[in-house]
């Protein structure tokens, strides 16, 4: 894996987005430096990110909040290494993520990141536990070992009895819990969730948000959550608000 030495230069912060607390000896878990992303839709050039600076520390529960089209999902996809920035850099500790090729970023993602989508996605020919175990199998672990891990995670999330059902037979809330189980199975350092409650009824959505909160508070998981739902705007340890591709406000949750 190619590692590129991290620049010692301080990110050119626009005054928002970069936490002010000391980072200690270790570099932050994730550092975003002047990230820009633009793409074309027909003849129009869309500037989805216009220069974002951000640091995410281990144990953070960061809420990225903002209206539709503000660039929050684009930012999350770039943090996941799924999308590439037009300009700027993204460090994972000391590693410049975009010095890696697509396959290497994939391997990195499977080992370090767990991803939860708004709509659950499944390999339909596999049952729920096999789907949950998939990241470990992709990583190269033996199927039996991967299933053992998946079983343990599913039991922790109280969905162990759904293991042998097809995921498409589960309710929306159950599917989202199974997605979270899949995101956790490889013991990632960070969970990236993109509107995980966007397609759920209020009660299921509350349950999922409660689960993420539990994972952060009780198990110390680092979570980045994208949402536009004001009901959850007060959750997490930190919140950044975005508008038109820039971070307009960064706050720490005083309830903590």
């Amino acid at each position, binding site marked *: 894996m190619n590692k590129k030495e991290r620049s010692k230069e301080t990110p050119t912060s626009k005054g928002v987005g970069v936490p002010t607390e000391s980072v200690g000896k270790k570099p932050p878990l994730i550092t975003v430096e002047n990230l820009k992303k633009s793409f074309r839709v027909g003849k129009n050039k869309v500037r989805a990110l216009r220069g974002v600076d951000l640091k995410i520390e281990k144990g953070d529960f960061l809420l990225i909040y903002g209206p539709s089209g503000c660039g929050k999902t684009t930012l999350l996809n770039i943090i996941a290494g799924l999308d590439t920035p037009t300009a700027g850099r993204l460090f994972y500790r000391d590693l410049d993520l975009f010095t890696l090729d697509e*396959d290497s970023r994939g391997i990195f993602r*499977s*080992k370090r990141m767990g991803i939860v989508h708004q709509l659950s996605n499944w390999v339909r020919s*596999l049952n729920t536990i096999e789907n949950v175990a998939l990241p470990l*199998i992709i*990583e190269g672990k033996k199927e039996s070992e991967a299933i053992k891990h998946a079983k343990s995670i599913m039991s922790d999330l109280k969905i162990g009895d759904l293991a042998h059902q097809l995921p498409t037979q589960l309710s929306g809330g159950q599917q989202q819990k199974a997605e979270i189980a899949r995101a956790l199975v490889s013991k990632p350092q960070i969970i990236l969730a993109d509107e995980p409650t966007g397609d759920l009824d209020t009660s299921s959505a509350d349950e999922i948000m409660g689960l993420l909160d539990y994972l952060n508070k009780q198990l110390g998981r680092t979570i980045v959550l994208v949402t536009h739902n004001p009901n959850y705007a007060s959750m997490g340890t930190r919140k950044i608000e975005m508008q038109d591709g820039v971070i307009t406000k960064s706050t720490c949750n005083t309830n903590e």
Partner: protein
Amino acid sequence: MNKKFLFKLAYRNLMAHRLRTVLTLLGILIGISAIVFLVSFAFGLENLVTEQVTRGDAFKLIDVGAGNSQVVKLNQETVDRAAGIPNVKTTALIINAGATAKNQDKTLDVAFYGTSAQYMDWSGWKIRWGKPLPESIESESSGSIVVSQKYLDFLGGGDPEQYLGKKTTLDITLSKGLMKENKNKVLADREFTIVGVLQDNANAAVNTNYQNLISEGVANFSQMKVELADRSQVTATRQQIENLGLKTQYVGDTVNQIDQVFSIFKIILGGFGLIALAVAALGMFNTLTISLMERIREVALMKVLGMRKKDIRNIFITEAIFLGTFGGLIGILLGYLESLLANSILNQIAISAGGEAVNIFYLPIWFIIVVVLFSLLIGFLTGLYPARRATRINALDVMRYE
């Protein structure tokens, strides 16, 4: 991703659409079975023809003649010299002459051969009634002959057994090329005793011991068969015989010619099967491409979860190879069963018409292996495009828009 899981995933994906998988397999197995059936028919025919040419001891024999040479003759001297070549075990001779058979006021031109029981045996001329030509003519009052059934038809036909021991009269014409004096000679009204009748009924032919003709002044033989002590030395021995100025022919030459003819025949028949297989391969290609379109979200998901391009490609190629290989194996079995059925029907027809049962189909093991590898290759090639396309999917676009 480990291989075991890869196979499991490919199998589950195929089984998720059973009917479509079965129909695709059906196309492949029809194509493969057509190739197996037609090509095994060509192999069977080739075997039959080759067996006819090479029956008995054919591979240890060289045919020797003088060709059109006016200088070198196949006479006792050259025969002795050839017999003296180390790898030559024994020799047998034949003199081709003509004769006119007489039966009351009827006459018939027949082939008249001065030869030996050994030569006749090596030539596959089987005696069905009576006995072979005697080794020696010393105790004979009149020359012994072995005749074809056609000759007996001229004498009046009926049961061949009744002609054994009967006498028959022939005018024998010996051409000048055979004679010591280089002059034509006619041996008129020679009486011979029928001692054997040949199974072959193609020509009216009469065979007598060649010594009967030597005693009439014949000095040159028409042809000689040479038996080799070691048949691996055939090339060297042929060369040594040809060094005597003689011409040689070996059954291996004929077999090579048969091989050439049947190679073309196999290609033509195999070509018909290939057309069927090409249609099936297009069907398989179509199935795999549709399957990719249906599973595009799954592919995107696997990419998001970190699956490498190589593994994504392998999933599709494994599915294609599964289809190709299983289609190939079942196709071989089906083609084999078809050939057994056709062979049995054709043999029943042949037996009811008075013929012999033969194997018209033959499927060599190496050809089965080639067909399995070929179907595997077809699978691989048809899977290549959907597999490559799968690796090029932009996961984000798919997750966003599909």
